């Protein structure tokens, strides 16, 4: 059933070890060659790479990557003012750099928290502007990749403290706290994200007086954070349950109080255990941000509609646009999930 040995020698016997295997190998190779031939022919040989709509329309069985060459700026940055688009680019680089630094277990120190706060403030400053030298850009014109990454990062950052409270609450000795936390978690996990986003977009405005409207981005962010918190809470609870009860009892016997036990003994171990699961949740949240398109925010998925929908010249080449957007998501998500696998190995190897 399972291959015990691996590597080129095992592969040779797997591929050609018996007549049946050889037949399967030949069939699969033929399938791969056929598929590969068509992909290469469409995507490279007959493809048009220049931003030339005439040439794109002339070609019959070839991709038009010219649409990416022509439209990559509105695809990546949405309706952000053209001359100012260096700002979202720098903002993405800042967030990516801090994320990569945080991915390294050696940097899991207290200074990571202030660093993240500074990075997020810098992100908002670059995007929003309004200070001398940076013109003000309203959130309605934010879009593309910076919005995708910003929504995911800020949404998760807001959700995490709430998730921590919910996870501890669900294990609390107080029945009321336990019931409230459990009901919240199960309620939110039972409904689709779209309904929560509808709520943020249609219902939250009703809670404010007619004159003052919180920004749609802020409302969507609140909805996303409330939604993600329920899933994070269950992951953290899994980690809390994995810490042996004896540790709590020993710490209590040593004179630790109820909260110091959680803060100093249980949580550090529990969070370390669930980092891979948390990373998978980050991938899920990153993919989920695509749904904010439905309530009128133009992140990576929505920005494509903005870039191509209103332009009859390039509209026929949506497929290539989608493939480009999918590739951007894929690089981000695949990178994160590989990191999660690496981290799991590293953490389980650590003493």
């Amino acid at each position, binding site marked *: *059933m*399972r291959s015990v040995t691996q590597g080129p020698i095992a592969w040779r016997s*797997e591929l050609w070890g018996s007549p049946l295997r050889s037949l399967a190998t030949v069939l699969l190779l033929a399938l791969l060659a056929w598929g590969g031939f068509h992909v290469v022919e469409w995507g490279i040989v007959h493809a048009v790479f220049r931003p030339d709509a005439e040439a794109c329309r002339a070609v019959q069985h070839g991709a038009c990557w010219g649409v990416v060459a022509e439209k990559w700026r509105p695809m990546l940055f949405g309706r952000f003012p053209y001359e100012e688009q260096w700002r979202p680019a720098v903002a993405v680089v800042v967030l990516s750099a801090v994320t990569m630094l945080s991915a390294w277990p050696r940097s899991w120190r207290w200074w990571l928290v202030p660093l993240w706060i500074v990075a997020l403030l810098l992100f908002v400053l670059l995007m929003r502007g309004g200070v001398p030298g940076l013109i003000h850009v309203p959130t309605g014109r934010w879009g593309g990749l910076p919005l995708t990454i910003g929504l995911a990062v800020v949404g998760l950052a807001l959700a995490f403290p709430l998730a921590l409270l919910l996870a501890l609450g669900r294990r609390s000795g107080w029945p009321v706290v336990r019931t409230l936390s459990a009901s919240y978690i199960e309620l939110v*996990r039972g409904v689709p*994200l779209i309904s929560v986003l509808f709520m943020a977009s249609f219902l939250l405005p009703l*809670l404010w007086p007619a004159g003052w409207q919180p920004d749609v981005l802020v409302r969507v962010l609140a909805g996303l954070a409330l939604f993600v918190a329920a899933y994070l809470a269950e992951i953290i609870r899994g980690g809390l349950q994995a810490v042996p009860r004896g540790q709590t009892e020993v710490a209590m016997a040593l004179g630790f109080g109820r909260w110091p036990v959680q803060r100093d003994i249980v949580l550090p171990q529990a969070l370390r255990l669930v980092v891979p699961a948390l990373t998978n949740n980050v991938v899920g949240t990153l993919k989920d941000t695509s749904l904010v398109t439905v309530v009128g925010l133009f992140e990576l998925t929505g920005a494509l509609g903005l870039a191509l929908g209103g332009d009859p010249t390039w509209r026929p080449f949506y497929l290539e646009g989608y493939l480009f*957007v999918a590739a951007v998501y894929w690089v981000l998500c695949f990178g994160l*999930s590989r990191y999660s696998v690496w981290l799991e190995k590293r953490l389980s190897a650590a003493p």
Partner: protein
Amino acid sequence: MSSSRGVWLAWAVQALLVLAVVAGAVWVVHHALEVLRARGVRSGFDFLTEPAGFSISEGWLDFDASQPFWRAFLAGLINTVRAAVPAAIFSVVLGTLIGIGRLAPHVLLRGICTAYVELLRNVPLLVQLLMLAFAMANLLPDPTEPVRLLPGVWLSKGGLSVPWPMVGEGGLHFELPERGDFGVSGGAALSPEYVTIVAGLSFYSAAFVAEIVRAGILSVSQGQVLAGQALGLSPVQQLRIVVLPQALRVIVPSLTNQLLSLTKNSSLAVAVGYPELVSVANTTIGTNGRAFECIAIIMAVYLLLSLLISFGMNRYNARVALRGWR
């Protein structure tokens, strides 16, 4: 909390918490109603009996614009089930095959299955659905020139036509769609939107099901497989008799979560124009502005569906679980 004073304190704090939550909820609802009244918006569920004024293009329940809203929501719910159930079946079958394929003793097969999983699960479902919808509407041939995928299966911009069982004079028989001058007739004609949502959901969820199945098979110890080999079981028998029954205990709880998430993901049909529950609710909000009521209906229905699926899968889990290990 051993002293009686501590117990009293705990109960007092909890009572205050309950009060705070109830008061908060009451204030929010009251305030929202007040704002609605101040803006002259009517509220309440009375609109459900009024004529909807929009029609629903497809589904098992006929619906036209003169019928009331509640029937529109019912048609939407039925359409949700109509998309989610086939997608669940396809994704479990495809996912199981791919999950087994990822562990197959053949490096090419493993590679293809791994590539499938890594490609599909790292791209948002919405992007995949929009891509499929665009391909269905623009890249396929016109309805008058459909392509034949299999005998009796035709695909075109007009959708997919498949054979369908019919009860005729000679008992049950399958009606094959036929190609005529004006497109395909007969059999079951599935709209492009329906094909998009079912295919998109199935392919995406299959990647996750494959990972669940793989983890389940890997959880069965290697010794069991070797023992099966020693008894002279063929590889297929090893899988069917020894590995899968034990793997199911690990698979079923995760699969339950995956089916729940598939059902919730079917709400993305709103983005590709398939008229399921969320789509109907969205149209209703656009028609009469009853956002609070419509969102409450969506949430209540999905919670109910989630409960039903959890209940059903827990029953199934009880059957596959080890005795005494529930």
